[in-house]
């Protein structure tokens, strides 16, 4: 005989525990439990049968997986929590008694919980860590812009934490710049989305997307619990720092990269870091290195004696790459004073690094170095945090100040400007040089399309073309008209890139198209009224002789010649066939489907209905969009006519 199954000994009743049960089992406070859950990534479950999981009670409860809680019992973090609890007690007692020395001793031996093991445990492989990097990056970006007291009178965010967050994102960006791994950028309402391709375990590329809010004071609602956010941040900081360590190490760089204090104080975010190669395998190359270094140093001294622009600074890697391409003893075009000092004092780049960068440059495809031939000047209202990162990650050079006339000004090819400016002023600033004036969206669109698009339509003060999400294919409605428009625009723009009247010319064909479209529509609309009734009837049923006869009579009455009548009839029949055939086919098909659906089982029928529901929703959404588009176009045409 089979073993008698008793209630509550297997299945859902055994698999799930409520939160209170878990607390009792672990013997910790609720806040500690929450912290543990956040750090360990333990989440409540939704049992299939709540009543069974709750042992017959239908009271609302949060359920956790029994084994999750069981594993928590052996968690080293739990031990640390307990240690900390007793430490806090001791400290409070010492302070209460005024035993300062004892308190100091205790404070020195304060138990510190480390989260490394959690990182490894939650993300056993590097790829998994990268796949889950979106939330950490988002939160770290957010915290880097928060004040120390986001909600006055409530939990404080230590300034060290904020500093660490901004350091981490800078390091992340520095890495992205060095490896040119930025792929997409999207200027949204909420902020700017970026996407990088990061090599995971075994070189498998993982897409990492993050959101960086605009540079404004963040509005913090009072019901946000910062203790929770800080706990998350603890884990995320650890995760990101380990990830960065791995990424830097794979690039053969020292992590953490040394921070140039001087630059940092001047407000440089990304540029304040020096990337230092690891000196693990110097060996034979050392002699070459030293030569190079010496040359560098000499050049540095020369340059520093000359007049240099303090504000101009460039990516070192970029220069390294350039240098590799350059002939020996060719003066570099730009050289800033502080960088020279850095080169002289900071650890020298080794041959390996140069090799690495050069090979890197060679390996990266053309699109990575989209902007490598260009130098951008950032107007002061544009966000240098964003555009410096994007342009440098795409291989471009950045100049942020035009104050002192240096040779570097000549290299400027593009000016990113985000305010209306008069042509006279532009010419004045250009001072005879040929600059391309663009709005920031141009850069984003270039990155997303992975090619340099025409700057037409992006000039300062112009109404910009719509900015589309580069992740359009994923979960978005198909909008063929949009692509058509874009393609048309692109081709038109490319064809007539240099011509002045480009825009006008491009507008004209569009208008023509539009009017044609309209005509067709009108035709369709008036199809009914176009033909006399009898002819129409005849065309609808061409085989009916009596109808044909009636139509002939009508034509005679109207004074239409027989041949003309024949032609008309043919046209009408054709038009009707066009009209009718899809409809009738659809109808027939629909009818057929309906019939076959009769034979579906109840279960399948329901499932089918569900699927059809979502499809219908999508279709309705699409229709709505299309309708709106048509209405807008119509309105625009009208406005244009007026």
């Amino acid at each position, binding site marked *: 005989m089979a073993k008698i199954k008793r209630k509550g000994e297997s299945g859902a009743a055994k698999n799930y525990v409520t939160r209170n049960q878990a607390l009792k089992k672990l013997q910790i406070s609720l806040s500690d439990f*929450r912290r543990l859950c*956040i750090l360990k990534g333990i*989440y*409540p*479950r*939704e049992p299939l049968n709540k009543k069974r999981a709750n042992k017959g009670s239908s009271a609302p409860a*949060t359920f956790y997986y029994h084994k999750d809680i069981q594993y928590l019992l052996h968690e080293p973090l739990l031990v640390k929590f307990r240690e900390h609890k007793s430490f806090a007690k001791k400290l409070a007692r010492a302070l209460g008694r*005024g*035993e*300062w*020395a*004892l308190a*100091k001793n205790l404070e*020195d031996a304060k138990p510190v919980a480390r989260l490394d093991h959690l990182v*490894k445990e939650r993300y*056993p*492989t590097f790829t*998994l860590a990268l796949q889950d990097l*979106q*939330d950490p990056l*988002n939160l770290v970006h957010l915290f880097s812009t928060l004040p120390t007291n986001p909600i006055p009178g409530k939990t404080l965010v230590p300034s060290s934490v904020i500093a660490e967050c901004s350091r981490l994102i800078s390091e992340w960006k520095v890495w992205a710049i060095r490896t040119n791994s930025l792929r997409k950028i*999207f200027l*949204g*309402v*909420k902020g700017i989305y970026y996407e990088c391709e990061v090599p995971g*375990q075994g070189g498998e590329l993982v897409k990492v*997307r993050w959101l960086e*809010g*605009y540079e*404004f004071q*963040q*509005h913090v*609602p009072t019901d*946000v*619990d910062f203790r*929770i*956010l800080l706990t998350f941040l603890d884990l995320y900081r650890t995760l990101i720092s*380990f990830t960065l*360590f*791995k990424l830097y190490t794979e690039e053969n760089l020292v992590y953490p990269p040394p921070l140039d204090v001087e630059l940092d104080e001047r407000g440089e975010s990304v540029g304040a870091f020096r990337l230092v190669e690891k000196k693990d395998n110097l060996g034979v190359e050392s002699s070459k290195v030293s030569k190079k270094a010496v040359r560098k140093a000499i050049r540095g001294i020369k340059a520093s004696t000359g007049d240099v622009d303090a504000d101009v600074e460039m990516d070192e890697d970029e220069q390294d790459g350039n240098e590799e391409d350059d002939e020996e003893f060719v003066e570099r075009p730009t050289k800033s004073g502080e960088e020279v000092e850095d080169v002289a004092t900071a650890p020298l780049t080794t041959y390996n690094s140069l090799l690495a960068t050069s090979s890197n440059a060679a390996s990266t495809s053309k699109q990575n170095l989209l902007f490598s031939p260009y130098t951008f000047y950032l107007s002061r*209202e*544009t966000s240098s945090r964003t555009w410096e990162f994007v342009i440098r990650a795409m291989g471009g050079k950045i100049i942020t100040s035009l104050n002192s006339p240096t040779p570097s000004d000549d290299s400027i090819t593009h000016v990113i400007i*985000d*305010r209306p400016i008069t042509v006279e002023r532009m010419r004045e600033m250009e001072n005879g040089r040929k600059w391309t004036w663009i709005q920031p*969206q141009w850069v984003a669109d270039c990155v997303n399309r992975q090619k340099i698009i025409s700057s037409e339509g992006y000039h300062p003060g112009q109404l910009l073309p*719509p*900015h*589309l*999400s580069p992740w359009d294919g*994923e979960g978005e409605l198909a909008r063929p008209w*949009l692509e058509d428009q874009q393609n048309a625009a692109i081709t038109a723009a490319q064809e007539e890139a240099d011509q002045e009247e480009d825009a006008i010319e491009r507008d004209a064909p569009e208008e023509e198209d539009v009017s044609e479209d309209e005509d067709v529509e009108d035709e369709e609309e008036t199809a009914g009224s176009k033909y006399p009734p009898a002819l129409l009837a005849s065309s609808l049923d061409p085989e009916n002789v009596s109808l044909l006869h009636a139509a002939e009579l009508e034509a005679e009455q109207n004074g239409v010649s027989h041949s003309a009548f024949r032609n008309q009839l043919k046209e009408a029949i054709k038009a009707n066939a066009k009209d009718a055939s899809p409809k009738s086919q659809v109808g027939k098909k629909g009818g057929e489907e*309906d*019939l*076959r659906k009769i*034979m579906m089982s109840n279960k399948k029928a329901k499932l089918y209905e569900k699927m*059809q529901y979502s499809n219908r929703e999508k279709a309705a959404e699409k229709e709505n*969009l*299309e309708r*709106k*588009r048509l209405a807008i176009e119509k309105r625009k045409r009208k406005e244009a006519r007026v």
Partner: protein
Amino acid sequence: MAPRNATASSSRAASSSISRPVKSNGIAGPSTIRNKKRAVQEVSEDEDDEEFGAAGSGIDMSDDEDAEEEDEEVDEEAFPEFDSEIEDDNEQDGDDETQEEEEELDDEESGSESGYNSSDIEAMYGEADEDDDQEDYSPITSPSSSHKELSTDEKLSKMIAKNSIKPDDSLGTDAKISRAKEGVGRLVPSKLVEGGYKREYDDYEAGYGSESSTEDNPNTVGNIPMEWYDDLPHIGYDVNGRKIFRPAQGDELDKFLSNTEDPAAWTSAEDKLLQQSVQLTDKELDIIRRLERAENPDADYDPYQPTIEWFTGEGNERVMPLSAAPEPKRRFVPSKWEHKKIMKIVKAIREGRIIPNKPSAAKPTVYAIWSESDQSNLQHAMYMPAPQLPPPKTIESYNPPEEYLLTEEEKKEWEETDKEDRKIDFLPAKYDSLRLVPGYKNLVQERFERCLDLYLAPRTRKVKLNIDPESLIPKLPAPKELKPFPISTSVVYRHPESSRVRSVSTSPDGLWVATGSEDGIVRVWDLGNGREVWKWNLKSGAIQHLSFSPYKDECLLIALVSGKIAVLSPLALVSPSVAANTLTHANTAFASSAATTKIGAGKDIKGVESIKWVRPNESERERGVLVYVEVPGTPKQVSWHRKGDYFATVASDASNKSVLIHQLSKHSTQSPFKKLPGQVQKVIFHPSKPHFFVATQRYIRQYDLSSQTLVRTLQSGVKWISSLDLHPRGDNLIIGSYDKKLAWFDLDLSNKPYKTLRYHTKALRSVVYHPTLPLFASASDDGTIHIFHCTIYQDLMQNPLIVPLKILRGHKITDGIGVLDLSWVSGKPWLVSSGADGEVRLWCS
């Protein structure tokens, strides 16, 4: 205690004072420097203790004698060798200083070996200081530590005092040492130090209370049984080892005499050790006396001395009831065992086994945590990673195409819906340039909610079906492969005044259509052209149902009206032979009985009496009305047997006579059921077996008429059966129900439906199998007729194939009733349907 050799002790004190470096601020204390290690230790202490040297020196420099005295005493207490304390008061003062110094020295010497040394403790504390040198040493650390520190300060001052005061001065200053000054001792030239003097004292006269006075016993044998010496001439040895001879003892007589003679004899006791009687002193006698009286042996003890009022009485009132009793010693004397433990630790620290406050080998903050050989864990069924945030869509752009912006109504709707129900969590907006984009207000809130979702939202695994919805639709042959079947209306038979046509039937030869409408007229129509060719007005209300006999050689039509069954035949329309056959069949019984009315048809079943077979009058007979059968209730349905002789009628309001089986040839009627299982809806004969199906509201019962038994009960699973038909082969059955369902029974398979289909939107009125072709049709109140193909395979293992073929629409719905009856045209894929709109339609392929 033996008198000490003062000379030796003083010289040693001098030597130690020479070797000791004079410090103003050190707390090295009295530790003698014997080895390099210690020296090093002290040097380090020197450096460290400079911080608080000033405080110590403040005390040192005071020349107060009492302070020094106290210091010494405290020192004694801190390092307890307690024996001297008891003597303090009784001893002669002159000895005090040297004695103490000596003891101190002894301590020091022994300390280096046993580890019980003040310097050790100091060394330890010094080391402790060394390690946390950033820390400012606060004196409040603990009571014990403050005490220690005090003692070190005192020691320090004592040291300084000892080393800074010359011997002569000290004689002058010290009150207790001043006995030497009094000249009790005498100065003699020292033998050890050239030109030095030493002071010699007289021997002590040990009095009572002195240890030696009670021990004044010449016999040194100790506490042994004296009988061991019984056989020897002596009784022990004196201090010098000489034998003490047994004193001469008289015999018993002498003893007796001396006892009687000597008056003091009774106050003497025998000293066993000396084997002689000793005279007890008065004091001793007094003690004995007191003991006898159970009194305190001490004569000075006063049991009634006045109480000393510590806490009560005038001037002794206390606010707090605290004890003024002196502090017990253990409160301020450090524990020896703790000290030993500490010394162990100190030793370990000295030897380097323990490095205090050693910074633990900290892991680096970041290191290579992942390697190429990492394996991801096998994903457990209960592992549910959090869903990633979806990528932003174009609608989120700062500059989206214009159609993405919300219209006024949409905006209003968005604002009115709850936060949780909104499809998008932001209002799309279009900005002309990037600099105009404001900060997003909900960024923090969104991040926070995401965090909450990550750890608070219950997760469950939802299987997303990634299947093509088309695959759910069963694969069936296309209807066009299953032609012919009725597709469209070809003939419409219109009834005057649009009276409802309740029933329709086609003749077995496929030429005529009979319809029964609610105006009480049975009409016969030409099937092909829709011309009305014959009609009977039965004048007794609506025609409930009518049916042609399936027997081809006859043309018999049975129509049901209230209380009456009419057997009709359009005799003029049919061939003469058929007409003749028909007439003979219907009238034979009349001929045999020669009566116009026949009751009960010769059966003597109870209750059948009311059923009369009536011959219509002449004129009616000429019109083709052959027989009337008067039955109780209103018969609603007639069902022919295949052979065309028997027919069954159902009149649901006729209680137990609702089901009747009539035999036309004999004009007889039977009521097969004495008691009915429920309200009978429909009945039908089995085409080949003598079986009979009765459908009640929910069940269908199959009876064997020959053996009069119930064969099986079919459970329909519908609420109210409306119609019933049996496949011509007799092994499949369909029913239609008022609750919009059609159920197909495979009689060989189960008592439950093989398939229940629900496709009509309203109640089914009629379901009919085609008599020869694999078709069936259903009619419903929704005004549609569904045509199905049904192939029934010979192979019993194969399920019947049912294919929906066509929906016939054309009948109008009047008063919520659509199509009422259906009838297939035999031999052709044609269908005749009658509707509530007064039309009968012929549907052709």
